């Protein structure tokens, strides 16, 4: 029995199955995704393309292998709901009694129920419980809204307001979700550290802002030059032992500025259909992937 061809066929079948499942199907489902009008915030496109300097920064990020220690994939373990009362209706004393029944331990007084609206009535409920509670409120004449609260260690650390999804990477030339977290996740870095100067100083020598940090110093992204007639406006403000010698200043190269622009453009706070959150009431500009001033 010559089972050479059989072995080949077995391998061919197995590999083509996995190729079909993990190469072809994702390309068909996700590969042609484009910027979309956000299903939730209908007025804007998501994701906004990064401005040119941030795109150059993405190339610096890739070339220096930042993705080997930093991930860009926020995880989410669940979504809880808070019920927010927006309108106490006309019969506030009956509502107060009803609420005291539903939520033992609260002591709502009649008129004060309607004060300070909108206010949170129920926290950390599952979506089904919240829906039941909202119906009960409606039957008592009140109106309510839900506020979604994603949960998970990544979200509690502020690494993102919601989990990362495929749409987040659509405008990236190279998707760099990373595979190891020696340092924090960077999906929301633009929101976590808004000051580009902090980013520059941190890149120059992480030990300046986080003592004993294991992150390497990226001194090659900066030039040490003699101070001219006056200090350059870009010069890093360093203190203590990290300060360069007198007459010298540390100035970021264009690569450093591009990298910082990229880091500042990383945001993970836009609500999407597949990752719903209740957006802050802040204006839409804060949720795009473009850097803000």
């Amino acid at each position: 029995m010559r089972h050479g061809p059989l072995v080949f066929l077995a391998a061919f079948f197995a590999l083509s199955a996995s190729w079909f499942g993990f190469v072809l199907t994702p390309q068909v489902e996700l590969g042609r995704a484009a910027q979309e009008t956000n299903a939730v915030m209908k007025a804007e496109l998501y994701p906004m393309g990064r401005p040119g300097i941030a795109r150059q920064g993405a190339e610096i990020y890739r070339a220096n292998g930042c993705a080997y220690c930093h991930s860009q994939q926020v995880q989410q373990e669940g979504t809880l709901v808070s019920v927010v009362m927006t309108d106490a209706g006309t019969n506030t004393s009956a509502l107060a009694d009803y609420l005291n029944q539903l939520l033992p331990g609260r002591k709502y007084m009649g008129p004060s129920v309607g004060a300070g609206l909108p206010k949170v009535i129920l926290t950390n409920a599952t979506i089904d419980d919240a829906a039941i509670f909202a119906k009960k409120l409606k039957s008592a004449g009140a109106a309510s809204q839900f506020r979604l609260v994603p949960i998970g260690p990544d979200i509690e650390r502020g690494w993102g307001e919601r989990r990362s999804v495929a749409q987040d990477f659509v405008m990236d030339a190279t998707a760099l979700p990373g595979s190891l977290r020696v340092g924090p996740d960077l999906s929301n870095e633009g929101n976590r550290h808004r000051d580009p100067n902090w980013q520059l100083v941190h890149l120059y020598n992480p030990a300046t802002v986080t003592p004993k940090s294991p992150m390497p110093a990226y001194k090659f992204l900066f030039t040490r030059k003699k101070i001219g007639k006056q200090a350059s406006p870009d010069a890093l403000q360093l203190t203590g032992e990290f300060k360069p010698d007198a007459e010298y200043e540390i100035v970021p190269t264009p690569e450093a500025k591009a990298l910082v622009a990229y880091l500042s453009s990383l945001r993970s706070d836009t609500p999407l259909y597949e990752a719903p959150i209740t957006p802050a009431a802040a204006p839409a500009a804060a949720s795009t992937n473009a850097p803000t001033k």
Partner: protein
Amino acid sequence: MNASSTTSSASDSISIAEIDQSCRVPLFQMFASAAVWLVVASVFALIASLKFHMPGLLANCAAFTYGRVHPVATNALIYGFGVQAGLGVALWVIARIGVTRVVQPWLIAVGAKLWNFGLLVGVIGILVGDNTGFENLEIPRYGVVFLFLGYLLMAIFILATLHNRRERMLGPSQWFLLAALFWFPWIYFTANYLLLSHTPVRGITQSIIAWWYSGNLNLVWFGLVGLAVIFHFIQQWMNRPLYSRHLAAFTFWTIVLFGSWSGIPASAPVPAWIPSLSTVATVLTIITAISVMMNVCKTCGHGCSETESPAAGKFIAFGTMAFGIAWILNAVGAVPGVNSVTNLTWYGVGVWQLNVFGFFAMTMIGAIYHIVPQVTGMEWPCGNSPKRHYWLALIGVILIVAPFVIGGVVEGFNWRNVNVAELEVAKKSLMFVRITTLGEVAILLGNLMLLGNLVGLSVRYYRLHFVPVYKGALAEIKPAEVKP
């Protein structure tokens, strides 16, 4: 020293010596280059490891930043040593089992040269900043072309050698190697074409393909080739066939079916069906580990330590155990409850090291220690060195894998605990990383021993085979007589 037994009384019988002789040219090229790349990989891995607790090391040099040194180390190990030595050992195994000469050995050596050139160009590209950004696929496009062409050249003639076999029936080692020879070009071409061509796929699809490729390379390809070599040597040294061919066939199916769907992390920013399928497949690979351990243990019985090449035998035995442990750890790490702790931590790095170095590289090193004396007909210059290498490698692997696995679990728990600040998590992992640096030192020393031994043996071979010819040629050249 040369074995002169023949296989059969058929008129076209071929001696083992002739088989080995036909392997000499390609194997010398492949093993020597592989040993060099192994040392290069260890050096870069050591530098990368040092940077964790000495962040100021070489900080001013862009080419030596961690993000460039680390991919050089992994690519040199995987492609420079792993695939190359794997193909060399596969060639020898196929020639030996098939009792046939190697087809076009010189072309195979040319293929290996192309492979090395592509890797060299690629490694320099990474150091210069052309890192593609995809794990295990960091070699830029200009290197990939040569790597692929070199592979094709090598694989075609290895397949031709398989085709020429006397015994038409295929054994487990041959199934595995045959499948592997076809597997690699498909995954390599697909991944590199879709990611690095002029019209690459966009968005997170890139990462899905990169993860798919990594899973197929690390689990399927290394698994198939490594196990083929292990099975061959076990049958050889126990002087009996594998305990169960059916079990070997079962292993084959579990590797190709389950291993090929592994590799996508559960946290990936992709629709839920993709990581779910991958999780299920990875957990199912535990069946592979169980079936292999069963087959090997039943074949070896109690005679595991009686081998004709003690040092090589130790390496192969260690490689087998590492396979079992690595695949079990990998499967356990994918179980959803465990994965929520170990995902994106050092745990995955430790398991990867155990699989690629502890299982695959150790197996190939052992095979090299066995094969080279047979093929060249000479003993290793330093007879004790293989044993010392074994102990260094053993210590090295344990010192690398154990801290990463344990440290990864600790790190995972720390990341989940919001009260532990980010810097604290890094600081708590530091002790584990320092121990792994010691492991890298041990491994580097061992690999230097292999390279030194190979160089010594090559020098001796040259002296034995070429110098007399050269001297003889010289002797025939008489000085011209000076006419008065």
